């Protein structure tokens, strides 16, 4: 126990260094965190107190990663607004449904090709359907594309996607984590979970006035304590009803998103989200044995191809409905390709439910490839579009 703090310090040093490196390379940081986690871990070299296997601290790092999920989803909930989603227009609703459907069908297809059992297939569907809100928002800001007309469509579709994933996770946790075996008991658990979510959100809307009143605190310390209390109690309690704690965090975020103090909450929670979020990706990497990834390569490559095709289709459709240029529509598809936190949460649920280990390997490879490929494609979309245009002209000329 005596080297616990030092080990955590070492982990943070590694994370910070990779973060700096990724900033230098002007690259999305998330895959880097996962990779550095994979690079160290049980098989890493060690001498004296420099032990990169993180033996003593592994359970603590894992716990911090768990907190990372809570903060990531809590913040997402704060930013989210169902009312806004409903107002956001036809392009987003249709494009978003199409996007979710295409990716989900891709997952079913992949499960069918590789002969997976039903539970595993549903987890794969979840992994493939969930865009990374964190990466997408960051890429758009970094590439200075926030002013583009397609940005509203992208963020709207992501919101739609998040909502779908939240529901999907809620149903899946009932199916996988409850240990129920008969169809009826699974149904009962899933329905209980859904009912809890609906009632919670409904009641939350009703009592937000009183929460607002209670949050009228000058002291920032007490304010923060109150927010944290709500977050941890709701997330923890959800788990007892087989609603994943991540979803609990999202729910309390949704409720507090309607609060008058939402800006202040966001300001207070943001540093926690950034800090523990980085540890979440790192700790995910720590659990991965690089040698075990070989078996999932074929499956991952098929999945990446399916995802690319599905995203381009959904992006084109959403772009066409909203009347933006084909070039901007291409941006929609490419930007949405990035995968990250949600896919990992999905994979972790699969792992907790004792599903096939290959699902975990698949998730790692899939997230790594698309967390790198997504931002790259987004960056080069202009060039890709121009090449495509030239190719089309040339083809026309050769025919003409």
């Amino acid at each position, binding site marked *: 126990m005596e080297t616990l703090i030092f080990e955590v310090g070492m982990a943070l040093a590694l994370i910070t260094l990779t973060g700096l490196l990724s900033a230098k390379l002007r690259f999305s940081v998330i895959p880097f965190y996962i990779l550095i986690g994979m690079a160290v871990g049980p098989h890493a070299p060690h001498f004296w107190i420099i032990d990169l296997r993180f033996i003593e601290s592994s359970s603590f790092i894992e716990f911090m990663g768990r907190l990372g999920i809570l903060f990531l989803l809590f913040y*997402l909930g704060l*930013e*989210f*607004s169902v009312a*806004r989603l409903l107002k956001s227009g036809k392009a987003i609703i249709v494009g978003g449904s199409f996007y979710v459907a295409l990716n989900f069908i891709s997952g079913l297809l992949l499960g069918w090709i590789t002969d997976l059992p039903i539970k595993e297939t549903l987890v794969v569907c979840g992994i493939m359907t969930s865009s990374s*809100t964190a990466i*997408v*928002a960051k890429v*758009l*800001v970094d590439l*200075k594309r*926030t*002013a*583009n*007309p*397609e*940005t*509203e469509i992208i*963020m*709207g579709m*992501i*919101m739609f996607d998040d909502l779908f994933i939240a529901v999907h996770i809620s149903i899946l946790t009932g199916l996988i984590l409850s240990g129920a075996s008969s169809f009826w008991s699974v149904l009962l658990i899933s329905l209980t979970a859904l009912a809890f979510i609906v009632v919670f959100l409904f009641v939350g809307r009703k009592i937000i006035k009183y929460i607002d009143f209670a949050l009228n605190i000058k002291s920032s310390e007490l304010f923060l304590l109150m927010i944290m209390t709500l977050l941890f109690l709701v997330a923890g309690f959800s788990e007892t009803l087989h609603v994943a704690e991540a979803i609990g965090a999202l729910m309390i975020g949704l409720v507090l998103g309607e609060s*008058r*103090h939402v*800006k*202040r909450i*966001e*300001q207070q929670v*943001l540093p926690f989200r950034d800090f523990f979020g980085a540890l979440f990706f790192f700790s995910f990497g720590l659990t991965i044995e690089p040698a075990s990834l070989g078996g999932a390569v074929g499956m991952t490559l098929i999945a990446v191809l399916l995802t690319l095709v599905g995203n381009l289709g959904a992006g084109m459709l959403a772009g066409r409905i909203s009347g*933006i*240029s084909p*070039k*901007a529509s291409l*941006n929609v598809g490419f930007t949405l390709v990035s995968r990250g936190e949600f896919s990992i949460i999905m994979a972790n649920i699969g792992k907790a439910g004792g599903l096939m280990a290959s699902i975990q390997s698949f998730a790692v490879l899939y997230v790594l490839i698309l967390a790198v490929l997504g931002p790259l494609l987004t960056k080069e979309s202009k060039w890709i579009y121009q090449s495509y245009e030239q190719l089309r002209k040339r083809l026309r000329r050769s025919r003409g």
Partner: protein
Amino acid sequence: MDLRESELPGIGRKYSLRTRSGEQLVIVVHNDERRDIFHMDADEPDEMRSMVTLDDEEARVVSAILAGITYKPKFLENQEIALDSLVIEWIRLEPLSKCVGKRIGELDIRKTTGATILAVVEKDKTKHINPGAEYVFTPGVTLVVAGERIQLNQLKKLLLNGAL
């Protein structure tokens, strides 16, 4: 005026303005208080010509210059605490406003809306810092007001209708 406002969840708010001179201006207010100002191509809405990123303080100064105000509020060192959810706005009184001719005390502004009038700038640039209850509203003056967003909305209603 063709001004569109939209929400970018996870990023911030976006304002697009098609100016009367035919230019496309987009301002994005990030959640972390940064502001990006984009000058977009007028014919190709997804082509950026140039952009500037401002921090919170710069943005306030620029907005004051754009609004033609020479009055520059001196913020305290620690803005977050002083300006937790406080908004400072400049409101120009149109001749149509029902509050014209009334006194500040008569409308009982602070009690009914919670907002505060920090200063009044007349058309000829004379300034009344912290005007008293006896001050009478005249058309065309600019009020510098502070309060929470909700309070300011109430205040605008009060100024326009002369009563709530």
